[in-house]
């Protein structure tokens, strides 16, 4: 198991290297610069002299390969460079935000799993029934709405009309601030999980070993408990992993809408003002999160599915 884990972790390295290179290249050709973004508020803030000085200070005049080399050298020492705007190490800037993002992702995923999986199970037990149709159409509808639109609707309804929940912000970490963004973010994975679970149950129900179980004289509820659930979970775990892993990326819109102080908001703002070290760092963190979750899921997968070779 340990060897499997280590091997799986090592396999991620080439991907990380490629991602670092790709991000670096993309943002070295992006038009506009931090200096130019300073001027965009129309206050005539920076002049040409200042732009030159900023570029010099942050080493933006160096050739790309020199900057890339410096960047990678820094990364190897867990240094992602210094933010132009915050004038702080990027690791600190991200470190300040990452917990908010994690909190939101985990809450959304928990919501999606707790609601989505049972829903899928219920729908699959009577395929073609009214309940099944409603659940599935509901799931597709959930996937078909622009997330920010849904968030806005929830915000208006629960915050403004009912006044139950705060409409925005982090509130220093209170749980009630988490509810609306987490639900909004959780709708997509919820819908997908409900569908995957349903498909999984239907698929496993058709497997031969379920027929074997029936031929043993097992009751339906025992078949479900002894033979169906775990096999369905093996299928569902993949979806959970993919959704959970990509959640930080998907959270960008939600974070922005709810003014949630996560790295998604940080990323969008940093792109807008061309705070490139933060942009690169944030994307790298989002990618690492994805890879981490998926590696983790693979390991879990190997633990619950004996067919996966662990050597």
């Amino acid at each position, binding site marked *: 198991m340990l060897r499997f884990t280590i*091997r799986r972790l*090592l*396999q991620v390295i080439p991907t990380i290297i490629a991602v670092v290179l790709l991000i670096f290249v993309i943002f070295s050709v992006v038009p506009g610069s931090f200096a130019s973004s300073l001027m965009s508020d129309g206050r005539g803030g920076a002049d040409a002299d200042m732009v030159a000085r900023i570029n010099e200070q942050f080493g933006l005049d160096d050739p790309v390969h020199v900057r890339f080399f410096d960047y990678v050298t820094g990364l190897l020492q867990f240094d992602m460079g210094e933010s132009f705007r915050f004038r702080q190490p990027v690791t600190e800037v991200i470190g300040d935000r990452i917990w908010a993002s994690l909190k939101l992702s985990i809450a959304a995923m928990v919501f999606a799993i707790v609601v989505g999986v049972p829903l899928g199970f219920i729908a699959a037990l009577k395929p073609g029934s009214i309940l099944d149709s409603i659940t599935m159409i509901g799931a597709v509808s959930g996937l078909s709405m622009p997330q920010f639109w849904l968030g806005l609707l929830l915000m208006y309804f629960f915050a403004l009309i009912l006044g139950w929940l705060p409409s925005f912000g982090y509130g220093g970490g209170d749980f009630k601030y988490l509810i609306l963004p987490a639900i909004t973010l959780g709708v997509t994975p919820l819908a997908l999980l409900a569908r995957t679970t349903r498909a999984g149950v239907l698929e496993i129900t058709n497997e031969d070993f379920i027929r074997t179980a029936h031929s043993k004289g097992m009751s339906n509820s025992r078949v479900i408990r002894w033979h169906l659930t775990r096999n369905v979970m093996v299928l569902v775990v993949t979806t959970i992993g993919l959704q959970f892993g990509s959640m930080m990326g998907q959270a960008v819109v939600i974070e922005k809408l709810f003014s949630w102080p996560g790295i998604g908001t940080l990323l969008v703002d940093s792109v807008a003002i061309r705070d490139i070290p933060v942009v690169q760092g944030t994307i790298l963190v989002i990618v690492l999160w994805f890879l981490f979750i998926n590696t983790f899921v693979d390991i879990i997968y190997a633990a619950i599915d004996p067919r996966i070779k662990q*050597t």
Partner: protein
Amino acid sequence: MKDNATTAPPLLEIRDLHVHFPVGNKLFARNRRLLRAVSGINLSLGHGECLSIVGESGCGKSTTALAVMGLQEPTSGDILVDGQSIIGDNAPGRMDRARIAQMVFQDPYASLNPRQTVHRSLAAPLRLHGTPNSEIDDRVADILKKVGLLPEHGARFPHEFSGGQRQRIGIARALILGPRILMLDEPVSALDVSVRAQIINLLLDLQEDLSLSFVMISHDLGVVEHMSDRVAVMYFGQIVELGRWDAIFARPTHPYTRKLIATIPDPDTVLHPDRDRRAGKAPEPPAGYRFCPEDIGRPDVYSVPAESALIEIGPGHFVRCATA
């Protein structure tokens, strides 16, 4: 069987064929092992002959067939047609190779492109090989008739046919370019008993009519006995016994061959319990030799097989032995 088959230059010759597959992780060399699917096959096929390769799943018989067809790169060894090597640097191109040998596949459901009509499946190779458009329709109709179908069937898609009919189409496709060798990979094992007979009859008729040579891969000894001139018994990458069909079935010598034949469920045992081939004394290996392998459990497919050779124990009848 034609008696001159062994003396005339063979149509197809397989020399010391090895096919190994690397198994395991690419990054971690110590986990990597070589699966020796085929280790050192020598075979020849005469003109108009039907050579069968029998063995159980995983013995390397299909890999051998794929290597001959150019669908599997051999690790080492040579394959010659009329004395000319068809692998390596001087090998003929795919187009030339297509006219030498064609293959009939096991699964009639997977062997036809479901998105192409029968006519298109048959006409496309002709067009590719430069047959004038004016001739194509005739040749397609012709080949359909040869395999017992109607020219009208060309307009249909594969799913409109039964398994037996599909296998006929598969045979038609294999024959369309007029190859000299037909590689039959379990040609009837996926078919129902009644259809099986029709296809076997068809194949035998075609062999006669078109003077084809067959290499047949099979695990069904009944079919093998019925169709073959010579039989090669394969066991974990090696040939353990090779000989004329009558020698193999009348005097099976290698323990594995004997086991194989003995375990065929045979309806005739009901009628003739006395003819139970399971009885009888096991023949001795030739003097100074022992059978190789002696123990027919599960050999390690990852290790180099023990030194051994095919020893002739009768005219054209060889058994794998190692010096005692």
